């Protein structure tokens, strides 16, 4: 992904579930479940170039990119180090540990993202405990998969 970021529609825009891993976040949610989540989340529309997350900011929310492309910029760099495409989940580390953001996320194109903060999540869990449990377990799975990927890179 990213290295062949050219117009091959059948490869890139199929919902972003990385084929190699094949894990779809919150796969079995019904449309009404999504609606329940959106009640407590922010629907954020952004323009190209807008910064969604700034490195160092304290903000305990995670994002799901529903439309558009954003890029990750590492501290001290101007150029993007990778691109995130629609469907991706990001920012989940700060959602769990409430520590400052570790990178900047800037919109490459206009788009829409869903932002769920801890407060929003708490509200959701008050009303929809089962749904909230699903979210936190799935989000845990995202973290675990990414930790495995990191381990594979640095430990093996």
């Amino acid at each position: 992904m990213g290295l062949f970021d050219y117009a091959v529609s059948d490869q890139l825009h199929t919902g972003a579930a990385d084929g190699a891993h094949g894990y779809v976040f919150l796969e079995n949610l019904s449309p009404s479940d999504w609606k329940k989540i959106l009640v407590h989340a922010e629907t954020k529309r952004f323009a190209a170039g807008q910064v969604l997350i700034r490195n160092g900011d304290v903000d305990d929310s995670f994002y799901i990119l529903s439309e558009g492309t954003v890029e990750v910029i590492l501290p001290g760099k101007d150029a993007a180090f990778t691109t995130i495409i629609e469907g991706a989940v990001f920012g989940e580390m700060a959602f769990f540990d409430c520590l400052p953001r570790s990178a900047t996320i800037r919109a490459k194109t206009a788009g829409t993202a869903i932002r769920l903060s801890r407060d929003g999540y708490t509200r959701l869990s008050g009303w929809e405990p089962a749904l909230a449990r699903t979210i936190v377990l799935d989000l845990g799975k995202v973290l675990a998969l990414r930790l495995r990927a990191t381990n594979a890179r640095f430990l093996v």
Partner: protein
Amino acid sequence: MSGGKALLAQAEASEFTPYTEVPTRLPKALWWVLRIATMAVVLGTVAVLFVKPQTGLDLFWKLLVPVLPIVFVVAPGFWRQVCPMALTNQIPRMGGFGLARTLSVKMKSAAFLVAVLIFFAAVVIRHVLFNANATALAVLIVAALILPFLGGLVFKGRSGWCGTFCPLAPIQKAYGQAPLVMVRNGYCQSCVGCQKNCYDFNPRAAIHADLADPDPWYAGHRALFAAALPGLIVGFFTAASPLASGFGSYLLHMASSIALALGLFMALASILRVSRYKLTLLFSTAAFVLFYWFVSPSLAEGITEFTGLPFPGYVAYIFFAIALGVGVLMVRSGLRSERLYELANAPVASVVGVNVGALRAAVETASGADLVADRGTGMSFVAGADHSLLEGLESAGVKIDYGCRMGMCGADPIAIVDGEDNLSAPSATELETLERLGLKGRARMACVCRAMKGGVTVDTSLDPRSLPEPEPDAALVDLGEETGVQRVIIIGNGAAGMSAADEVRKLSSSCSIEIVAREREGFYNRMAIARLLHGSTAMGGIGLQAPDWTERKSVSVLLNTTATAIDKSARQVMLGTGETLNYDKLILAQGSSAVMPPVPGHDLPGCFVLREAADAMNIRAWRQTHECHSAVVLGGGVLGIEAADALRQLNLSVSILQRGPRLMDRQLDERGSEILTSYLKELGVAVITDANVAEIRGDGRVSGVVMADGQVIEAEIIVACAGIRPNVDLAKEAGLAVGRGVKIDGAMRTSDPDIFAVGDLAELPGSISGLWAVSTTQGRVAAAAIFGCEIGYSEPNTLVSLKMDGIDVKGYGAIAAEGPNQEAIVAPSQGENEHRLLVVEDGKIVGAVFVGPSGTGKHVTELIDQRPDLGPVLDDLRRGDWSVLGRVLD
């Protein structure tokens, strides 16, 4: 980790640069010279093949062919720029007469295999035909120029040959899988995305992307070719001439050599714990080195033949040594790019995704395009009559201060920068509040103002007070001067006292106003004190007074000052400081105090009441200086629940002990209370109803609560929110008529004509004390009465609202039909978490219970404010159409 990140950045920055970012080192014109020169050499070779067949064969096999592999390893891009086949392939594209068709998915996946078969066939047939037959070789070369042209005529980009069917492409990709030098692809001015994992687009990443392809066959083809390659080379160079050994035997030799290589690859793949790429790299490099092992002597021979230079025999070894060195560089470069590819290809967010379709559909239905933007934070939220600006901002993650959430307290004025016309019209309550704050025309109260459609821009970073002030009202008659009332003293600086002060000043600009306040803080939002528990801004954000209020209104406020006695006859107030103040009129507004239930142990350290800002800050300090795990809140009313929610956010395990049968039992019916209780329980707050506390236990400080049934609930903090008692001592000592509170008439006058009482400590027959709206209204009535104006007191909006994130709880008046004239109508449930009930008498609302997620209580505040005639819509309500409520409002 930072080392890894640096590496990642490096990977993206340099290793996998797409061709578009590779610098052009040679001028375009020079490339054309090189292309034409190469084409000339090839066409020349064809000519020589016809004229001097043996020379042509030697030129081709001993010189041209042996040079290519090393070019492929070092700078494959160079060859792909000057390759004569690429040139003929690109002619239709450059000439603008190509059909530019897209290769079908099937053809794309089969192309590589086709190219491999052609290549293998050509090599195998070489011994039989092309090595010795110059004409056949010439035909092969010419065919290799025509076929690419045809491919270029039909298919777009380089997908008709270079990236697909070209039999040299697999070997270029195998040898050139980690090019030592990158050369910019000059044929594709802009990428048309004609093929998958395009080698010309990103040469170093192509092999990795191919091998990591989710389609195992697609990836397998690439590995298969690299695995077979050493076998093909060894087989070819070790085969006896088929003319001597027979064609069958020759084929068997070739096949067994290839099979041996394939078998070795598979065996190593099974035995060694290395990636498939590493094996592919190993076999490709082995093929390359073996090739030069075999061709170095004939290469030296060829050079001698065509240059006339007499090369000694060991030169062949030098050539081989060079190839070996290049092979080592190839391995190094390959390993490096594999590592960087892995780093770059497992980016922060590509491992998982959501089903975009489902999410997007939900977003579309939920939001539409109508948004309210906040200039202060750059956030936006969905506009709609169902949510106030405050709720919208909260859902967008913007935190602003709030208080009553009913437009009365004035905690959340918000500056409207644009689209004011798209907002709901302000209610009388909201207008009154804005007027009190001096913000009429400059701001709206976020908690009650709704964006009916999009296009509204607010600015949470802007203080509305900094906006230009509208024209002041025409000067009024100074009632103070007219009536001779020139000295007004107000005791207490809560909502009642401050509202009275505001009103007095409005009616008279000349009289002096002195406020005596026991508390240390200026006028603050008492309804928000629970937030002082978990919020870290202390009093910041809950003050309700502009910094210049005392100056602007010419009011003198004595904070941290106690009134100790009143001398009615001398019209004097004695202060604890020994000073004495004279008054013409006195307004008592000391409010009430919290009651600590008189159970044994209630005076242990760790037991608190919660009524004032100082109480809240003391509790917060205690939590930080003592080891605390859990807290108990005595009382399940509004304040108790708010306190429990605040303590929960201090990471304490919280239990609410409610004496009554349910939470907020005076404001909510069973169903409403049940929903509230369930919400609290899901957040981790335990609720115990019909609770009877026998004792508060502790050794030196609180350690728990013992219930009448013997059950012990551990707690290091106990907060009592179990009722209030009017502060009547001063009035009693002064000899005023006192019952439960200070007795007053409809003009808030006490038994002394110069003394008035307002707010929590006042006792007016039939009125409910302890509510903000009652206090402010009484303050206004008293101020008018001071100057002899009887404006008459009528009970204001006494809607009770819980201030808790995520849940709407509103209760007013009756919670069930009382008597035959009243009717309770319940809205059809919009979900298991929602409950709406209205009690109606003669078409008027006499009771309401609204509990559910944010937005459930929409219209309630306005309904209670305006109390419209519901007679015409009662049938609709009974039928379940509650949307009519929005229509009966102004």
